[in-house]
């Protein structure tokens, strides 16, 4: 079932962005996926290990972006003369980051989608921090 789980690098980024949903496993300090039927953020925090994090499914990550951050992303298959290809679409972000996406496999598109959503959220957070730090102090 590893195909359904986001990669370690993305899982760490999601942790840093505040992802705390229950998962079907976690990544240990070696970055190895350890499955379990229900892992909570409390379970992970108890371990007190810096590089340990929740290992969410792609579906759970997309739901988190949609429900918590109001950014909806998904993979769209389409046919071309070269055969089946996959694109990505993002609703709730006007940066046009999803344009010109073209992937050979569903897995490749799904990974790129999550990476893009993470980047969008980091950019949003950075922008929000900059706005708050540059606003006049009372």
């Amino acid at each position, binding site marked *: *079932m590893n*195909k*359904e789980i986001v990669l370690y690098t993305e899982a760490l980024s999601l942790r840093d962005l505040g992802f705390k949903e229950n998962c*079907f496993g976690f990544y240990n300090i070696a970055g190895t996926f350890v*499955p379990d*039927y*229900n892992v909570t953020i409390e379970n992970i925090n108890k371990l007190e290990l810096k590089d340990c994090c929740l290992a969410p499914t792609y579906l759970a990550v997309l739901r988190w972006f949609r429900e918590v951050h109001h950014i909806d992303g998904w993979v769209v*298959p389409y046919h071309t003369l070269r055969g089946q290809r996959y694109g990505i679409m993002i*609703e709730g972000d006007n940066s046009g980051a999803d344009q010109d996406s073209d992937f050979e496999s569903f897995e490749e598109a799904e990974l790129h989608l999550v990476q893009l959503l993470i980047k969008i959220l980091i950019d949003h957070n950075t922008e929000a921090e900059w706005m708050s730090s540059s606003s006049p102090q009372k």
Partner: protein
Amino acid sequence: MDEFFVTPEIARTLQQLGFDVPCLRGVNPDGLECKSVWPIDFNSGNGIMGYVSVPMYTQCINWFRERFNILGFVVPTYLNDTCKYSFTVDRVSFTELGFDTPEDAYQGCVEEIIDYIHTLYESQITSNTRSGEQEDNEYRVSE
């Protein structure tokens, strides 16, 4: 997280289709749900007959794509301020609209693909007997 998993009825049909991907959930012979800390192919029996694997919807969708070359996918549709979900089964150009959640759309998608496979491989159903105890119907898919 129950919403990520197929219903026991769908799980039993998947078993008949030969679903063999290890899962975190299963159903025991008494129909009770069982969970595992490690993915198990409950359908293989593992020495205990009568168990059924209960996969996540995305595991099914991936398995259909890899095993049968049937592509099912779910996309949102935004209209004014409302969002509904639809699914499409690529091979049969079938689309159904109007689901409230992606999980509902995934369920519809998996059911539609199962119906399609039944139609496609109806003539290929063969009865197998496993270990002389349990009789399964499996689909033999030509590569």
